């Protein structure tokens, strides 16, 4: 795959082809995302981040769950897997442990990662599993028809809350921080350059990395709450977002159409699960134990 992809990347530069096209499965484009949806923008930023990071694309795998964002795995021309609902992180964990050379990316939505897959997220972060989790947060269940999601702020109307939502939402960066993620940041689809940079930075780091991407859902969330089109939501992100790098994650919860704090909140080093396991068994078993997933010397 790599040679043909490299050739296509070279061609893209000379033949005036869109620089993102070599990363996509052309037979599946145009995608099914609605006009004004921000998921495509986030995928666009991810492709740019892949270009900038200079990673070997044979060693990048992408795993998605179910939902609008879950379709990303089907559109990207990388080794990808579309798992059952909520089980993207367990699959990615297995993939990483089975082949520690891979750079595993979980690309999924808020409903998939935090509602049905909530437990998996907490424990992968607790163990500091070496994966990058990109969560596209559109505050609703897009594919199933606009039900209340764990990230829906208090106030807006949803199909399952016709008189307005009264349940407190999750503060995703706070959860990731509290569970022990090594890299936590939040950007909106308005901050495309910063988002691409954050993705590049996170791809180069070790440990459990988490990026929240706020994205408009023009068909369900915005339309039901009379917030205008997708582009109006992105204008709201532009006007109401404040960049606070290193902000305390417990203060950055999201309200309905309120202020949005974006930036890089956490960047720390912790031993990953594999490193901890190797250290522990080397200590306990001594020479009987051969460390797993460590590159032989000289490579």
């Amino acid at each position: 795959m790599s040679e043909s992809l490299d050739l296509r990347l070279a061609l893209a530069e000379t033949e005036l082809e869109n620089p993102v096209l070599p990363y996509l499965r052309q037979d599946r484009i145009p995608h099914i995302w609605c006009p004004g949806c921000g998921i495509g923008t986030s995928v666009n930023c991810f492709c740019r981040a892949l270009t900038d990071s200079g990673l070997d694309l044979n060693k990048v795998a992408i795993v998605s769950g179910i939902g609008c964002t879950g379709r990303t795995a089907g559109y990207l021309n990388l080794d990808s897997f579309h798992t059952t609902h909520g089980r993207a992180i367990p699959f990615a964990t297995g993939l990483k442990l089975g082949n520690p050379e891979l750079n595993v990316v979980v690309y999924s939505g808020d409903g998939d990662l935090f509602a049905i897959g909530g437990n998996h997220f907490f424990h992968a972060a607790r163990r500091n599993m070496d994966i990058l989790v990109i969560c596209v947060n559109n505050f609703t269940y897009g594919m199933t028809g606009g039900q209340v999601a764990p990230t829906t702020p208090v106030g807006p109307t949803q199909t399952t809350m016709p008189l307005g939502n009264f349940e407190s939402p999750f503060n995703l960066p706070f959860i990731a921080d509290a569970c022990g993620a090594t890299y936590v940041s939040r950007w909106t689809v308005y901050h495309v350059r910063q988002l691409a940079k954050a993705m590049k930075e996170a791809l180069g780091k070790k440990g459990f990395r988490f990026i929240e991407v706020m994205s408009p859902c023009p068909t369900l969330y915005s339309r039901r709450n009379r917030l205008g089109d997708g582009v109006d939501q992105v204008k709201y992100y532009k006007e109401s977002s404040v960049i606070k790098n290193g902000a305390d994650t417990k203060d950055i919860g999201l309200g309905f159409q309120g202020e949005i704090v974006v930036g890089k909140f956490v960047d720390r080093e912790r031993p990953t699960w594999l490193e901890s396991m190797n250290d522990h068994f080397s200590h306990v078993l001594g020479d009987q134990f051969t460390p797993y997933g460590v590159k032989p010397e000289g490579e």
Partner: protein
Amino acid sequence: MTVEDTARKGKGTVFVRMEVCKGCSYCIDFCPTHALDFSKEFNQKGYHFPELNRPEDCTGCDLCGLFCPDFAIFGARWKDLDEKRQQAASQVKL
């Protein structure tokens, strides 16, 4: 791909794949120099696609390319395009 305009008015230009555009207007609204407009024509799906109406304002910054959710548009600077073409031409000779 779109054929480039022979007249080079600005520092750069944009290339549009109009057949995949869904008319979300991200590129038009967030263009830093407001060089793009909706075209009066429709594409096959019935959406208006963007058009470079003020080419003298386009800087080729490629912000439209980063914003586009449908991978339908990207910008490039004339300087970079010329360099790339020269490089490609030299590679072919070798």
